[in-house]
Every structure is written in C-alpha cells, then in structure tokens.
C-alpha cells in the first residue's frame, strides 16, 4: 500500500513520455482503435445474421471458439508471423491490434446478432405488413430495438480490450501494461500495483461513459423496469396528493 502510494504521488510518475498521462493516452488509443475496428466488423455482420437468419451456426461456433484461444500465445504468434512482413514500429502494433480485435469481435457480434434476433416477431411482422422494405425493417425497427444488446456487447468488449491491452507491453509497446512489465523487471511493486489500479479505474470510467451514452441513445420504451417503476411512483404520488 505504501509503495503504491509513493509511486502514485511521485511527480516523476506523472511526467514525460513514460508518465501516467502518456501511458493512459496510449492505452486508450490502442483500445479505441481496437473497438472501432471490431465494431466495424462485428456490428454489420451481427445485424446481417440476425436480420436474415443466415449463418447462426457461425456465430455460436465463432463466439465459443474465440473464448478458448490463449491471447498471449496468439499475440506472440502474430508478432512472429506478421512482424517480419511489416518492419519498424508497426511490426508490433499491427499484430497487437489484430489480436485485440479478434478478442473484441465475438462479444460485439453476439450482442448485435442477439439484439436483432430477439426483436418481437410481431413487431417485425407488423413492420413488413405495413409496407416497410427489408432495409426499413432493419433500420427503423430491428436496430433501435437491438440497441440495448448492441451496447452490452460493446461494453463487455471494451472491458476485455482495456484489460487485455496490457499485453501489448510484453511485445515492447506502450500503454499501461508497461508499468506492469517494467515494474516486475525492476521489482518496483508500487509501480506494478499502480498500473493494475489504473487499468481497473480506466475500465470503469470507460464503462461509465458507455452507460451514459446508452441512456441517451436507447429509447425509454425499451427499459421496462425503470419506466414502469417511475410511472408507478408517479401514480402513487397522484393517489396520495389531496386534490
């Protein structure tokens, strides 16, 4: 605890290209680019599979299969295979992002797919029956209704990616993982604990941001518990107030 506190309050920890702010920025940059890429792959694919019902088997196998892949091993393999082809700084960056994307796609894909799949068949039938084209059914009904699950896929992917992006340091990249790797190398346990703490705090903050965005974007009609409780409270208040 003491060591951790000393490291966190040491002004040197906060300065320069190896300081906490710079490492946080690097970590966020890796994570954000990973999430964007994974979302660009996972969301359209998930929506398409949910909308057409084709390729369900793919989702199930892919999601389960990816969970069992050892990330660290995959990372070294990717660096060994891709590194020599690329050269320079990106020799390590591209394989790292590649592995993180592989990790992030399954939850995002599963969320988008399950969200569309779970739309009330009656709503979908009514949408078609009222003359919506297939595209209109997808974008006006299925996607808005799927948003809660799309968000939950994104959030769980974000948590995994932020936690796992620490591995990038093991192939000589930056990010908060540096504090863990370097801390261990120098037996600086304060730095190691500080790095771990920062990863956890960052993950929670990012999740909080997602939660706020989700509240703004998702229709209140899709959150039964909250709205009905509020309605019940309003009704109770109305019943109690003397008129």
């Amino acid at each position, binding site marked *: 605890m003491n060591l951790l506190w000393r490291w966190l309050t040491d002004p040197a920890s906060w300065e320069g290209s190896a300081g906490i702010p710079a490492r946080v920025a690097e970590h966020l940059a890796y994570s954000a680019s990973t999430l964007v890429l994974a979302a660009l792959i996972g969301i359209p694919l998930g929506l398409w599979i949910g909308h057409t019902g084709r390729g369900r088997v793919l989702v199930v196998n892919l999601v389960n299969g990816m969970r069992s892949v050892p990330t660290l091993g995959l990372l070294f393999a990717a660096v060994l295979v891709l590194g020599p082809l690329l050269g320079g700084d990106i020799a390590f960056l591209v394989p790292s992002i590649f592995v993180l994307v592989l990790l992030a796609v399954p939850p995002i894909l599963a969320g988008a797919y399950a969200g569309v799949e779970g739309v*009330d*068949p*009656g*709503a*979908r*039938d*009514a*949408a*078609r*029956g*009222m*003359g*919506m*084209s297939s595209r*209109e059914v997808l974008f006006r*009904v299925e996607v*808005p*209704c799927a*948003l809660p699950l799309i968000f939950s896929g994104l959030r769980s992917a974000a948590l995994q990616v932020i936690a796992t992006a620490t591995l990038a340091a093991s192939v000589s990249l930056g990010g908060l993982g540096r504090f863990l790797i370097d801390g261990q190398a120098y037996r600086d346990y304060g730095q190691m604990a500080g790095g771990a703490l920062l990863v956890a705090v960052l993950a929670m903050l990012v999740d909080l941001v997602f939660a706020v965005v989700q509240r703004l974007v*998702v*229709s*209140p*009609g*899709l959150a*039964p518990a909250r*709205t*009905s409780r509020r*309605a019940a409270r309003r009704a109770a208040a109305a019943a109690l107030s003397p008129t």
Partner: protein
Amino acid sequence: MIRFTDVTKVYPGGTTAVGGLSLTAPTGQITVLVGPSGCGKTTSLRMINRMIEPTSGTIEIDGRDTGTLDPNELRRGIGYVIQSGGLFPHRTILDNIATVPLLLGWDRARARARAQDLLERVGLDPVLGKRYPNQLSGGQQQRVGVARALAADPPVMLMDEPFSAVDPVVREQLQDEFLRLQSELGKTIVFVTHDIDEAVKLGDQVAVLRVGGRLAQLASPAKLLSDPHDDFVADFLGRDRGYRGLAFAEAPELPLRDEPVVLLGSSVEQAAAIAAGDRWVLVVDEARAPLGWAEPGVLTGVIDRDHLHRGGTVARVGGSLRAALDAALSSPSRRGVLVDDADSLVGTVRAPDVLAAIERRPDGVPA
C-alpha cells in the same frame, strides 16, 4: 372488393395450406375466415397483402391483380392488425400510429395530428400518446394496433385474430367498439379468428374453412346457424345453434305487460303493497331504469341495492328474439324486462309469448 380465384398455397415439402380457394369479400363489409387450426385461414389472409405468395390462382382488390403490384406499396394501402399487436416498443404510441403516414411521406405535423385524432377515435385517453407500448395494457395495445392500421385511411383492412390475446371481458368491449367503428368507417375487412362466436358476432359473412384450406361454407351468420352445409360446419358451429340463431332474428312486436315498480329506497311495506301478493317486485330508479328484482316477503326496512336479485338480463324493444327470450328465462319472476333506447322500462314479457312469436315466424331458413 377482394376476390380470391382458385387460390392455392403449397409449402415446400408438399403441405397444402390453402387448396383452390375462391371467394369474394364485398366492399364495406366484414368477411370472417374461421376454422380449426391448420385450415389455412391465416395463410389466406396473408396472401392478400402478399406476406405470403400464392402458389397459384389470383387475388384481386377492386379488380387489380395484387400479384402485379409492388408488395410494399400494396401493403401501405392495406391496414394490417395482428394478434400480438406488434407495436414497436421503441416508439411512442403516437409515433406507432403515425408509422404508415410517415412511410407515405406525410409531413410530421400532419401525421401526428392524424395519430392524435385516431387515438381518441379508438377510445383511448389522448395522454397515452406520449407513452410507450410497454406502459399500456393488452387491450389498450390492441386498440393502438387498430388505430395504427387505420392511420392512412386504407379502404381494406386485414385483421388476424386481433382480439384473441385479451381476456374475455375486454374482448367483448373491443368487439363492440370495433363494430361501432366499422359502422362509421365502412371498410372492406377480412377478419381471421378461430372463435366461431366471434365470427358469428362480427361477420357480415362468414367463410368456414376446413383443414387443407378448403371452403366448407360461405354464408351470413344467420344462414350458417340455421342451415349448416354439412356435418363439419354443424360440428364446428357447436351446440345451441337454434338459440344462437335467434340473435339474428329481430323480435316482432311482443305482447308486453305493464309491470308494477317500486323506487329504490322505498319501504318494504310499500313494495309488498305494490307487489300485491306476487313474490317478486321490480325495482327502478327515478328514470325508470330497471335495477333488479326484490322479494318483499323476506326483507325488512328499506329496499337498497344490496337486496336486489340481479340474475335477470334486460332486452331492448326491437332487439333480437334471443335477447327477449333470455330476459324471460333469466328473470327470477319469469317476467323478462324490456327497455327502450334510453334504458327506461317499457314492460315485461313471458317466455311462452316469446316462443309464440318464434313459432309464428315464417318457415324455412333466412337467406
């Protein structure tokens, strides 16, 4: 007018859902498709707006073969109501109702005004417009479903068991209001149900389908009840056909008797005097609306609402023979209560008099 000509639907695998169906749903009337499960009634309905494509045969709406039209445009011109309501959970009630007008390119203000108007038309409180579907009861959701189907004022409406997912009391209300609405709007409606009582109540004509999508009989409800074409139709109609058929026979002038009445709140002694030895006496309010029967012999004090026997049904003068007969049969005094359109007592009738009126009807079956 919707005309099916020799329409067949065979699913891959060889199941014939609808086999050579030909029938006409007249303009401005309710045609009910009814039958056991697997009779192809829903398939037939869904072929009208091409949610399902027929294997062969043609379906015309006002002379135009639907097979030649763009499916989405066709559907925007047809109201569509389904059993589960199918409301969009992420949209407010008003936005749900405004769906088709917005698809048709109306401006938002006009679509909203139309939605607000329809909300009231189907008997919903205007404040519900800003709510979401999950905040409404099942019955309210079905009303919204009907309003949404009416939004662009389509001449044709397709309704697939719209009232079967709500409880019986609400269902009856929805049916009554649906009939009232239809009497104002005069849409051409095709209505699917598995409930023969609903079919007989709502249909101007009823098509009974048998398994495999073959038409067993197409007739008015009265004709169906009095003259089922074969055993299948007779069995499907069920018991009490003679009695139920009386619902479609307007009662002729019945020999009404004056009924002595007491006002609610009168003393039991007054009531006994008015009853003049009869066991039962009819209690009314100031407007002469019948409230129930009282038995002065077993009561003391004043007659209040808790004392009333409420078993008797009340029939309207000029209503059906079924209602008049039921009023007589259900009354504890065996005198059936008849009221006018203002719910005010006109007189009472006895079952033998109603039966005599039934006996006097011309022989044969209604057309």
